[in-house]
Structures are given as structure tokens and as C-alpha cells.
């Protein structure tokens, strides 16, 4: 049974079809990498799933529930967690407060807390403890009280992942989580994603350019090219297939959507 699925999901900007009728299922307990050349529509596909962009046609279903008409925030509440390509935090709040806000937004009874006007924020020990736990998991406990804008880029990327962990979503979407990180920081973030993957109830979607990262993490690869889903299968087969070689190098424009058999 698929946890998340998109059916004929499309978006047109004027005459340009950025994502063209992508139908795809994502099973729990899997990590699917979405690859393709620049401008293939990977981030746009993400935006359609998470609701940052309204689809022109098609639907997004999570656990059998149609999310197509819901806003981005409602989709997050339904269990879609999304991290962003460009670091997107609350810059003038501390690291721990950033995470606490995500913990507060997480699914169990959180919105009741968010609308709580009359309790003191620091009294909610359980929020703080959970936030500290997550900061520990990303090895940032010593930087908890630092204002995010003053943290190095690598730490901000880690916080981006931590924030997603705090949401306790069932779908985790990472858009180039290692972008702009120094080589020695990359393994930390990959380790975090690997940890999330251990929970077999979740499914993880990963947009990534670095093929070694994809090879290491993914159970499955789908390839987007000019907005079309052009290949889908296990990593070894997809990477080896001629269509990916072609699409990835951007050598040929004449790709027709068809499936590489796994």
C-alpha cells in the first residue's frame, strides 16, 4: 500500500508545462531519490506535493486522504514534512527556539498549544525537553542558545533537518539537504536521514544532485526530465539505464516518457 501517491500531477506556467502528469506511489519504509538535470521539475514537483504551489491538475493523496485542495500548512498538519533547498529558519530566534516551534507544531495536540495564550512558554518542559533531545540527535546541544543567524551554514542545514524531525511527519521531503555543506559535515546530515529511515512507517523523498549520496541512501530512484517521469526503479538499474545517462547529461531532448524496468 502506498503511503503517498501523486496521480497525473501537473502544473503549467502559461504555455510551459513544468511538471507533466506525474503519477507515482511512495511506499512506507522506503527512501526514494528524485534526480534529473537542472530545471527538470524536481523542486516544482516537491512544491506541488507539499502545497507551496497549487497544481493545475492531478491529485496528491496521503494515507488514502486527498490533500489536493489543502493549503501548505494543512498538508503539514496531515503529516507532510518538508525541508527547503535554501535554508529557511527563524533567523533571530535561538536554535532551541526554532526547534521548539516545530515541536509545538508537531502532530499530537500541538495546535492546542500553539493557541495557548496564557501559559508561559518556558513552563512547557516537555516541548523544551523534546527540542533538546532533537538538538542532541543532530549534535548541536552546545549551540542551543545561539541565535540562528549567527550559526555557520552547516549548522543551519542541520537545524533544517532537525526541524523536520521535530514535526514527526510521516512523509519527509528533503530538497538537496547537503547543498553548500563542507565535505566533513555531509556525513552528519546523511546519518540523520538514515536514522529517520529506520522508522518503517515513514517514507522519505530526497532531491539530490550528488550521485554518490543517492547511491548510498536510496532504495529507489525516479528520474524527472522536462517535467516528465522518465525512469523509475532500483538505483543500480536506473543509474545504468541509457535513458538516465542521456537525461542526466542533457544530451538528447527527444526523451519520451517510458519506464525503465526494474
Amino acid at each position, binding site marked *: 500500500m502506498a503511503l503517498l501517491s501523486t496521480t497525473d500531477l501537473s502544473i503549467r506556467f502559461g504555455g510551459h508545462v513544468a511538471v507533466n502528469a506525474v503519477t507515482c506511489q511512495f511506499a512506507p519504509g522506503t527512501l526514494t531519490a528524485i534526480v534529473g538535470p537542472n530545471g527538470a521539475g524536481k523542486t516544482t514537483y516537491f512544491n506541488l506535493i*507539499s502545497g507551496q504551489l497549487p497544481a493545475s491538475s492531478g491529485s496528491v493523496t496521503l494515507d488514502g486522504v486527498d490533500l489536493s485542495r489543502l493549503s501548505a*500548512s494543512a498538508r503539514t498538519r496531515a503529516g507532510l514534512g518538508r525541508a527547503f533547498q535554501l535554508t*529557511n529558519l527563524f533567523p533571530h530566534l535561538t536554535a532551541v527556539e526554532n526547534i521548539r516551534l516545530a515541536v*509545538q507544531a508537531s502532530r499530537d495536540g500541538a495546535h492546542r498549544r500553539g493557541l495557548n*495564550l496564557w501559559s508561559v512558554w*518556558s513552563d512547557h518542559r516537555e516541548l523544551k525537553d523534546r527540542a533538546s533531545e532533537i538538538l542532541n540527535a543532530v549534535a548541536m546541544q552546545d549551540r542551543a542558545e545561539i541565535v540562528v543567524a549567527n550559526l555557520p551554514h552547516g549548522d543551519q542545514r542541520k537545524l533544517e533537518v532537525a526541524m523536520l524531525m521535530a514535526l514527526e511527519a510521516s512523509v519527509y521531503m528533503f530538497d538537496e539537504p547537503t547543498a553548500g555543506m563542507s565535505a566533513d559535515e555531509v556525513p552528519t546530515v546523511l546519518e540523520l536521514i538514515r536514522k529517520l529511515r529506520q522508522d518503517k512507517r515513514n517514507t522519505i523523498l530526497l532531491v539530490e544532485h550528488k550521485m554518490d549520496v543517492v547511491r548510498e541512501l536510496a532504495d529507489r530512484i525516479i528520474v524527472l526530465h522536462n517535467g516528465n517521469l522518465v525512469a523509475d526503479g532500483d538505483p543500480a538499474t536506473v543509474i545504468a539505464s541509457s535513458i538516465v545517462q542521456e537525461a542526466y547529461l542533457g544530451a538528447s531532448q527527444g526523451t519520451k516518457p517510458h519506464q525503465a524496468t526494474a
Partner: protein
Amino acid sequence: MTLNRLLSDDLPRSKILTAILLTLFVLLALAPFIAPGVNALSVAAKILIFIVLVASFDLLLGYTGIVSFAHTMFFGIGAYGVAIACSRWGATWLNLGLGIATALVLSVLLALAIGLFSLRVRAIFFAMITLAIASAFQTLASQLSEITGGEDGLNFSLPDMLASGYMYVEQPIFGVSISGRFVTYYILFAAALAMVLALLRIVNSPFGRVLQAIRENEFRAEAIGYRVVMYRTISSVLSALFATMAGVMLALWLRYNGPDTSLSFEIMLDVLLIVVIGGMGTIYGSVIGAVLFVVAQSYLQDLLKLGSDAASGLPWLAALLSPDRWLLWLGVLFVLSVYYFPNGIVGRLRNRAAGL
């Protein structure tokens, strides 16, 4: 620690700031004894009123990042609520209460309407919409003279127990007569204190943190699952309620209200200046800002007169220091304070305490 609870775990975090706040607290608490003169007590009362008005605006601007020019509209609604109830229906406690309740309900409805219809648009458009609504409201208030008294406003009396002639104790205590005026001042003081503490609590609640998140990064707040429009609307409604109460305080003190007293755009600008000078997003900033501003507004002219007299030997300096130029000097003070304290006075003091 109880003081910490009272301040919602948001202590001043600077020794100098703590000292200033404590001093202001004591001065305002003892104002009727320290400065029993009518003018001095009016300055103190005006400070109390502005503290509430500015702090409520800080919830909106400093914590939620909403720029609204309709804040004095709610201030005016509060003042008119008291004025209309007491002048048209008669000066009883019941009418006073009804007037306040009506004003609060009207403010909630208006703030809800503005919020739901316009908080989805971009900040600059929202600011313009509020500007339009505020000037429409001001025009309405001066045109509907049957109800509001028009440009002349309304003079009214309050229940006897709040009148200056009403004596609670025969003999003055420490040279101060315990009159209705005295009691009114302490009602304002208690109301201001309670409302500042309430605002501190709100901005330090889980809700308040979501507001800050929205101010910092609206897109991400939405993406982690918060309904941004709903939070903004609630913040606008709350801020409108506190502004209405500030208006009620104003009417209780002046026993007069008119468009220039509570609705004018000049007051809106003053509020904006005070919140920036004091330090946005701190609540404490509105206390310090309001004191500085109201004192400067009230005494700068006297000070300038002294300076002008002293400089009578130098005609050009005397002309520059003429009391008529007080607005110029207030402007200079504002430019200097924004230049030297971009985070406001409270931000500057806190940075200093944190060793930045």
C-alpha cells in the same frame, strides 16, 4: 520565583533596564504624592495611557510584524464608548460598563473584519488599507455629530465617586486629598500595570512564540503547519482590545473626547515613534518610550524656555531654543535615538548587558 512568574519569565535582562523600570514603577505608583499638582498628575496619567496604547501596538508591530495605521481607531472607539455612554445615557456605573463593553465588542468585530479580509495581502497593502479605514472612521466620527459631538467632541461627567469634588476622607493624607481624581489615577495605574503584565504573558506564551516565528519567516511558519492568517487575526484582535482599553483610560481621565484627542493621525505617528524609540518586540520598550516621549512632549517647551532665556545674549541661539521650536527638537531627538539605538533603548541596554 514569583516575580519571574509575574513577568512571564521575561525579565529585563539588564541591570540598568531593571533599575530604570523600578524607578519608573515607583514614580508612577507614588505620583499623586510626589507631584500632586494638576498638570504633573495629568502627565503621569497620560504616561499610563500611552504605555498601554504603545504596548498593545508592540504586540502587533514588534511581535507579529504587522504594520497597521488603524491602531488609534481602536483607541478612539474605547474613548468614544465611555464618552457616548456617559453623556447620552447618564453618568452611572452601569452605563459606564455598558459603554466599555460596547466599545470592546465593536473593536473585536472591526479588527476581525480587517484581519480576515486583508491580512492575506502583502504588508504594504495591508498598511494602506488600514490607513484608509482609519481616516474613513475619523471622518465618520466628526460627521456623526448627533452621536459623537462632531469636531467639538463630548464633555461628560463620570459617576460621582470618580469626580474631583468627591472626597473619600475628610482630612488630606500626607497633604494629598483622597478625591475621586486620586482614585481615578490609581484605577488607571492598576489597569496599566495589569495590562502590561497581561501583554507580557501573551507574548511569552506558546502563541506569542508563533507570532514571533511569523514575524521572522512567515513562509516557514506556514510550512511547519501554523495557520498564519489565523494567528495574525487573533493578534490584531487582541491588540485592538488593549488599544480600546487605553482609550477607555483616556476618557476616564479627561472626561472629554473628540476626534483630535483620540483619533488623530498625529497620535498614530507618536505611537509609532515611541515603539521604535523604546525598542520593538520588547513590551518594556513601550514603558520607557512612553515615559520619555510624554515627558519630552510636556516639558521640552519649559526646558527650551529656560535655555532660550539663558541664551538671550546670543539672539540666534535664543531663537533656535525658542519654545515654539519644540517639535523641531523632538524630531532631532528622534533621529538621534534611531541612529544610535537602532534596536531601541531596551535593545541597546540588553545588548550592552549581553556584552555585545
